[in-house]
C-alpha cells in the first residue's frame, strides 16, 4: 500500500502501510521498549473500551520530563486511561511505572509504554525528557481516598529537577467513561536535603487528594 493511497483516504490504507513497515522492520522501538506503531494500531480498540475526557492538560510541559502522580483503585484500567488520555490531549506518550519484569506480560506492556518500578529507571526516563506516570498505592476500599506514595520514587524528580504533577482519575473499573484532571505542578526545592523527597511526596499526595475531592461527582451513581 503506497503513501499515495493513504493521502487519498482509501479505507485501511494507513493500517496496511503500518503493517508493511512492520514486515520490513522499519518501525521504531525506543530503549525502554515503547512501540508507537503498535500503540497506533491498538488505538481503535482502546477507544472502544474507554471514553476519556482530560482537564488541565495545559499544566503539562510541551517538552521535557515530568512525573504524573495519579490515584488508582484496582489499578487495571488506570494506567491505560492515563496513557491514552494524556496522549490524546498532548500528543505525548506516558511511561507508566509498575510493569512486571516477567515474560510475556512484561515485554508486551513495555510495547505500550510500561516501565519497571525503579528510581533509576524513572530518573533515566526523566533525563530523556519523557512523561512518567507514577501510580499511588491501590485504594481498593474507597475511590474517595488516594493511596500512599512511595517517597523514594520522587527522588528521581528531585535529582533531575523535573516537575511533579498531581493527577486525579475519576471512573469505574467496569465503566467506559473516565475523567482525568491534571493539577498544577507541586513546587519543591531541589536542594532541600534529605527531607525534600518526603515533603514533596506529602505535598503531592495532598494535592492529588484535593483534586480528587473536587473532581468526584456528588452522586454515588456516577
Amino acid at each position, binding site marked *: 500500500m503506497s503513501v499515495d493511497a493513504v493521502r487519498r483516504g482509501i479505507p485501511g490504507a494507513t493500517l496496511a502501510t503500518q503493517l508493511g513497515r512492520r514486515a520490513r*522492520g522499519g518501525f521504531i*522501538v525506543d530503549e525502554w521498549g515503547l512501540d508507537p506503531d503498535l500503540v497506533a494500531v491498538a488505538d481503535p480498540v482502546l477507544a472502544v473500551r474507554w471514553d476519556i475526557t482530560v482537564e488541565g492538560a495545559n499544566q503539562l510541559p510541551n517538552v521535557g520530563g515530568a512525573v504524573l502522580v495519579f490515584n488508582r483503585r484496582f489499578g487495571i484500567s488506570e494506567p491505560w486511561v492515563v496513557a491514552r488520555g494524556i496522549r490524546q490531549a498532548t500528543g505525548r506518550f506516558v511511561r507508566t511505572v509498575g510493569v512486571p519484569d516477567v*515474560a510475556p506480560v512484561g*515485554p508486551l506492556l513495555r510495547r505500550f509504554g510500561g516501565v519497571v518500578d525503579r528510581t*533509576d529507571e524513572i530518573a*533515566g526516563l526523566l533525563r530523556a525528557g519523557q512523561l512518567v506516570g507514577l501510580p499511588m498505592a491501590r485504594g481498593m476500599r474507597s475511590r474517595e481516598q488516594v493511596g500512599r506514595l512511595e517517597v523514594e520514587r520522587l527522588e528521581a524528580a528531585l535529582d533531575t529537577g523535573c516537575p511533579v504533577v498531581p493527577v486525579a482519575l475519576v471512573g469505574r473499573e467496569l465503566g467506559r467513561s473516565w475523567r482525568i484532571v491534571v493539577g498544577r505542578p507541586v513546587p519543591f526545592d531541589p536542594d532541600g536535603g534529605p527531607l525534600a523527597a518526603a515533603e514533596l511526596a506529602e505535598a503531592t499526595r495532598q494535592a492529588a487528594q484535593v483534586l480528587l475531592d473536587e473532581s468526584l461527582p456528588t452522586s454515588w451513581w456516577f
Partner: protein
Amino acid sequence: MVRVLITGMGGELGTRVANLLEGDDRVTDILGIDLFPPRRRIFRSEFHRVEPGDRRKAVRIVRDFDPEVVLHVGIFEPHSRTSPTEARLGTAASAVSVLGAAASCPSLKAIVVRSGIEVYGRRRGAPTVPDESCELDPTSPFGRSLAHVEQVAHDAGQVAGVPVTSLRLAPIVGPSIPSPLGRYLRLPFVAVDPLSELPFSLLHQEDACQAMVAAAWASHDGPLNVVGPGAVTATQAVLMGRRVPVPVIGPGWLLAAAAAEMLGAPLPPHSRELLTRGCTADGARARTVLELAPRTTHDVVTQLYRWHTVAHPVSSEAGTPA
C-alpha cells in the same frame, strides 16, 4: 609528545585504533601487543606478538616501553575469535599482566580500558537503560570478565595515581568485525523469542575506535557508556536484514543454539541474553565528555547487512601493487 601502548592491536579494533593514532602528530611512539598479528597495515607502530598467558614477556615489553597512555583494547569476546574458555582466561591474564606492569611505569598518565554494557547484567527487575551510576551486576560470563578487567584497571590506576576511563561499549557489530552477534544475525534463518524479546542497542566498530582514541586525550576518571542512539528488537533486526525470523521459546533455544553452531554462528550466553532480555544503556555522558556522535543502532543494523564489493588494488606497474 606521547607514547601510547595498545593491547589487542591484532584485532579489528586495535589495528584501527593504531591507524587513527598514527595520524595524530601528538603521538610519538606506538607499541602494540596481541596474540594475533594486526589485521591491517600499520605504518609507524611497533608490534610484538605476545601470548596472553606469557606474563613475563608482556611485563618486560611494557616496562621497557614506559607508556604514558595505555589503551587496553585486548578483550577476547567468547566465540569471536577464540573459544569461551580461552576468551575468559586470555582476557583476565592480559589485563593483569599489562595493567599491572603499566602501574609501575613512571611516565604513566592515563589508562583507558575497553569494557562493555554487559557489566550491568539483565537480572529480573534490573534497570532497562542503566547509566554509569548503576551498580555492576553482570549476569553472563562475558559480563563478569569485563567487570574483572574494570576492577584490575581501577586498582592499577589507584597504584599509579592516574585517571582510568572504562569505556562500556554497547555490543560492537559491523560489516568486517568478527562478532558472534553479527554472524548470528546474518544467518538466513534466525531464532528469535517473540514472547520475551526486549530492545538492544549496538555500536558501530568505527565509533568504538573513535571513542577509544577520544578517551585517550580526555583523561576522564570513571566509566562511560558508549552506545549507538536508539534500539531494535531481535525480530526487527532480522526483518531489516531480509532474513526469516523463526519463533523459538523455552527449551527450543537449545535446539536453535545447536543449529546456529552447526551453521558457524555459535551463540554465547551474553548474546542470547541480549536477544531475549535486551541490552541498552544511557550514553549521554560519553557523548558530552568525548564529543562523539555515534551512528544510530538502526544505521548499525543496516550496515551489518550491507555487503561492500571487494576493492582490488590497482597496480601502478606490472607486478607491483599500488
